[in-house]
């Protein structure tokens, strides 16, 4: 089984639209939205949710005022400024609490409870392109890396059970914990870069991250005709860093129009120049040595 993770360094480069467009190019695949912080793939996939599960992420400290004697040990030990003291009354600021549990363990009165909390939900759905695993992290919750890992694990497990040999994962932005959680053990990543000074900067950072974790990386340039100098710069950097340039997509309003119609680019207009480019990129990506599918029995 292979997994292609589509990344961008930053949102807004067309990562999700491209993932969606790819989905129609293979008859059997598993979709996975690993951008749990601001998931968008469902907006085009219109998933029919089959299963909903709670994501129990971490724990949160809660001080029981009846048991608390106001000794201040928790305040002294908490390194996250999460304990507030107001006239001898101690409370936990949930937005600062990291769930480390140090106050819970060290409170001499055992006055701090540590209930587990639901940090989001994850779903298994049917879509017109195949099954999809996706999630939604609750607002202001932590542990997005763990939820990403869980979503990918479930996608893998279910793909295996259904004899699906390819997982297409829409990755999160950035280079921090969710992204690291999204690329571990991936077969390859495809970076969607825009020909802008910031696009180049972002692509370099994800490229370095992929190299750090030894994951084969490819890049495609979206809206390449917006700035041809920057497009050439991306190609040069890619060559230097051993990143295959899988192709270039021209600027095309069809992407936005398709999104508004809840369609993939190829459903909306499969003859437009961008659609042709997307098909070519798909061919190139799928023939990369890291992505070659083994025959299914």
């Amino acid at each position: 089984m292979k997994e292609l993770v589509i990344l961008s360094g930053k949102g807004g480069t067309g990562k999700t639209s491209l993932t969606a467009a790819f989905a129609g190019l293979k008859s059997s695949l598993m979709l996975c939205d690993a951008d749990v912080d601001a998931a968008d793939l469902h907006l085009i996939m219109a998933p029919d949710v089959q299963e909903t599960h709670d994501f129990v992420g971490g724990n949160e400290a809660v001080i029981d005022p009846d048991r608390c004697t106001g000794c201040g040990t928790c305040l002294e030990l908490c390194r996250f400024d999460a304990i507030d003291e107001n006239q001898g009354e101690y409370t936990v600021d949930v937005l600062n609490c990291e769930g480390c549990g140090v106050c819970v363990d060290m409170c001499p009165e055992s006055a701090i409870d540590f209930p587990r909390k639901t940090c989001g939900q994850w779903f298994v759905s049917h879509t017109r392109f195949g099954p999809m695993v996706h999630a939604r992290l609750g607002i202001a919750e932590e542990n997005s890396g763990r939820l990403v890992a869980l979503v990918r694990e479930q996608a893998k497990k279910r793909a295996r059970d259904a004899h699906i040999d390819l997982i297409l994962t829409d990755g999160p932005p950035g280079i921090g914990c969710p992204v690291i959680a999204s690329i571990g053990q991936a077969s390859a990543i495809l970076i969607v870069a825009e020909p802008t000074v910031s696009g180049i900067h972002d692509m370099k950072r994800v490229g370095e991250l992929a190299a750090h974790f030894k994951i084969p990386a490819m890049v495609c340039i979206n809206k390449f005709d917006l700035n041809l100098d920057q497009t050439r710069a991306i190609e040069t950097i890619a060559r230097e860093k051993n990143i295959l340039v899988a192709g270039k997509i021209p600027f095309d309003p069809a992407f936005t129009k398709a999104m508004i119609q809840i369609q993939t680019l190829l459903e909306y207009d499969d003859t437009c120049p961008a659609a042709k480019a997307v098909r070519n990129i798909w061919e190139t990506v799928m023939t990369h040595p890291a992505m070659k599918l083994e025959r299914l029995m």
Partner: protein
Amino acid sequence: MIISIASGKGGTGKTTVAANLAASLNQPVTVLDCDVEEPNLHLFLHPDIQSREKVIAPVPEIDLDRCTFCKKCMDICRFNAIAVTANTVVTFPELCHSCGGCTVICPENAVTEKERILGTVETGTVPLPDMNFGQGLLDIGQVMVPPVIRQVKSHRAPDQGITLIDAPPGTSCPVIAAMKDTDFVILVTEPTPFGLNDLKLAVETVRLLNIPHGLIINRAGMGDDAVYAYAKDKNLPVLMEIPYDKAIAQAYSKGDLIISQQEDYKEKFQTLYKKICLLADSEKCAP
């Protein structure tokens, strides 16, 4: 006055707004790039970096001569950053949240803390009148983003000054760390279904933090009207619209400011600031 500029997701034009607003104000301003995973603001403001400091987090170091392998440190660690076996202890610094629990609990005083570098904070000035600049850079492979953001934020302008914070995307810990304790949040969005979806999450986040906020619609005209309907429904003031314009996109691609290409935008950004002053706590607004 501390204004943070956020959006549910990257790529909506947060950095464009931060850079242009900063360069349009006729007052001293400090701009801080808190998108430490992918800081881009420097590409538009070309700061002259004058100092660099490391962001350091303590992680445990185990003195195996003292350790009796009681496993207390392993048990207290909620992040699986310590594994104790019959005759050794392994730590996983990249999982450690630096809570210090293992150090306080160890009965043998076998745990001390050593420093791990999470990233760098750079500060300097921008070759425009009265602009200070700061940015954080997360080291590749590191995951502890909020401490880097907090350290960038420690460089905010003194009392009366204006600080602009370019926040990271999303709705989880990094963006909370950036928006927390700021006086106003500008939410930048695009009038598309993705833009709207991400905006809804961003609005929930600011409302949770209880910070006054308003909307900038970037690339106005590119998509549909649903964002406007939502704004109206939720009583979200639309502070400014930036049209969908190839010239603006090209300026951005080269790292140019809109105001250096289209003079009239300077005034538009000044008006934006005035609107913010009316919506935020008025005492925070410098005269």
